[in-house]
């Protein structure tokens, strides 16, 4: 059974200018112990998706349709009370700008201990602090820094502390939303390596949200590309990278400069992302798509299965040869 399966989920926000469809008809499954990375530009709905799964959407958001099935149970039917029992214990989140997620006036060890004791009140303080020690070892923080306050930590150490906190109750699912965005490359590299090795060791499922394709490529098994609120392509990393099928995926890949090999021209995507209050009919990418046909503007595209694990939402892909192989 899949650990998490999201079925035709749609989320919108009530805004001053109208109803904004932030996530529309997104479906995917995540197997136990695997990692899935969502990539897309700002405003594509990737953070909203993560928040919807955790049940942490802001007041003005509403889920209009769909199901979020976690370990066989539909989370959208749970009460707030029930969700509180699941959150952190069963699924934990590493937030964007996690360095600001620590409370500056409490010692780091106490903050992690609090997370543990909230979900397991029977546990004594001694035992809890012992668990915190284990977690510090696990994420590679020195034990003698347990009694420090957050401001005494560097950015990378804070991020490790946040990861320790997320792991504190042995969750089965971790949602990481841009966990390394504010960090320097060398620190980012160490955190990503740690995350990957922890995942192999503890076998939790992971959803990794990032704007940076290469970061997702480094840590995840599968990748999902989002554009304007829709999931447009989903599949194993190697397959999607070597033969991207959706024109947006291909365009996004060629917007990233390459470090080695020939200095090739970048092909930026022309135009702007569509307005999600009045999204265009038909395919949302067709305005910017080099291969758009008149049919693309009329009907909403359906999923096309390329291989059992690799699917793409583009009408032009049916029967077409894949985009030229990169590499």
């Amino acid at each position, binding site marked *: 059974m899949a650990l998490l399966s999201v079925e035709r989920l749609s989320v919108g926000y009530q805004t001053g200018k109208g109803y904004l469809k932030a996530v529309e008809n997104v479906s995917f499954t995540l197997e136990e112990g695997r990692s899935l990375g969502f990539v897309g*530009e700002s405003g594509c709905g990737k953070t909203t998706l993560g928040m919807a799964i955790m049940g942490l959407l802001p007041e003005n958001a509403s889920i209009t349709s769909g199901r979020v099935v976690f370990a066989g149970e539909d989370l959208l039917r749970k009460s707030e009370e029930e969700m509180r029992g699941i959150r952190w214990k069963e699924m934990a989140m590493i937030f964007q700008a996690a360095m600001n997620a620590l409370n500056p006036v409490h010692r780091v060890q106490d903050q992690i201990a609090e997370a543990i004791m909230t979900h397991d009140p029977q546990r004594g303080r001694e035992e809890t602090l012992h668990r915190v020690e284990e977690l510090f070892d696990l994420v590679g923080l020195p034990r003698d820094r347990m009694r420090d306050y957050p401001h005494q930590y560097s950015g990378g150490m804070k991020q490790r502390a946040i990861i320790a906190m997320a792991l504190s109750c042995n969750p089965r699912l971790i949602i990481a939303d841009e966990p390394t965005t504010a960090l320097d490359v060398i620190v980012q590299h160490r955190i990503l390596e740690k995350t990957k090795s922890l995942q192999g060791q503890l076998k939790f499922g992971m959803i990794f949200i990032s704007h940076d394709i290469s970061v997702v490529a480094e840590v995840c098994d599968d990748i999902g590309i989002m554009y304007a609120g829709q999931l447009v392509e989903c599949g194993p990393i190697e397959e999607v990278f070597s033969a991207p099928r959706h024109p947006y995926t291909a365009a996004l890949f060629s917007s990233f400069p390459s470090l080695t090999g020939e200095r090739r021209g970048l092909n930026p995507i022309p135009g702007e992302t569509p307005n999600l209050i009045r999204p265009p009919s038909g395919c949302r990418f067709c305005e910017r798509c080099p291969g758009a046909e008149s049919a693309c503007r009329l009907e909403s595209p359906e999923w096309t299965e390329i291989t059992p694990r690799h699917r793409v939402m583009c009408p032009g892909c049916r029967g077409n040869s894949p985009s030229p192989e990169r590499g």
Partner: protein
Amino acid sequence: MNREPVLRLEKVSRIYRGRASLFGGRSTTVKALNRVSLSLEDGEIFGLVGESGSGKTTCGRLIVKLEEPQEGKVFLDAKEITDLKGQELKAYRRKVQMIFQDPYQSLNPQLSIFESVAEPLIIHRESAGAERRERVLSILRAVGLAPPEDYIQRYPHQLSGGQRQRVAIARAMVLGPEVVVADEPTSMLDASYSAQIYNLLLELRDRLHVTILFITHNLAAAKYLCDRIAVIYRGTLMEVASAEELIRHPKHPYTQALIDALPKFGHCEGIRRYDALLEREREGSDGPCCPFFARCAKARLERCGREVPPLQAFGSDCQVACFCVESGEGMETEAGQCYFGV
């Protein structure tokens, strides 16, 4: 390309003195730039790459005279500019412009796009009336906001981040400067907009013949845009070389560590790792030492911990500040095709 240096920094230092804390802590000094010397050649895009806090932004701010160096000299066209005042300073500002990091903050929200771009022309009393309007329209066209008539009446909040950054670039370019300092112009933008901005900078360099100092933390972007790259660490230049050479044959252990740390994907199995970074930092020495000493896996304890390595020429177009390279250790590598991100 003409090989005359347009802009030259000579042993420039900038030190920030922190105030003693309220609770009696000692005041601290931070050497944001430590005797940095570099020169920008006419019409080149020069990349300054470093991590946060390495002094790269300070360097850019010194060049546009938003800050003053405590030591050292800055030259534009072989003329010293350190003590410029009044009219001379104004004339200097006309020649050296800056593109800031955040287009959401660098544009005045109360000015229309036309007013924003025309402002430098007004300040420098250049052209008027129909001629001024034509200059604004043509620079907007040059930065890819076409047709410009659609944009001039709008305000920054009506534009996307990428369009705003184009306006900021137009504002920097409208006076026809000799040198433009671009401080992380794409760090607030999405990948597809970043790529548009990179291509725009390349195009403007060729068309308007402007020299650009491109400040970034992204080695891959620097490789794409720049002719030469300098790597800066804790206010000290570690390596200066042509972009190709620096990426393919990095000589300084810090540059190697940066390249190791970039996320890799693609056919990277055969790629060489340099392993120049220590797993755990070693005790730094109190006296003068190489800035990278505490983290360097290749450091020699006798020398690197006691002396500061000077930036020395190494081969034709390459300078490195490292004792290990001096002694000529083999650092050859052949990298495979990989994808690297931001």
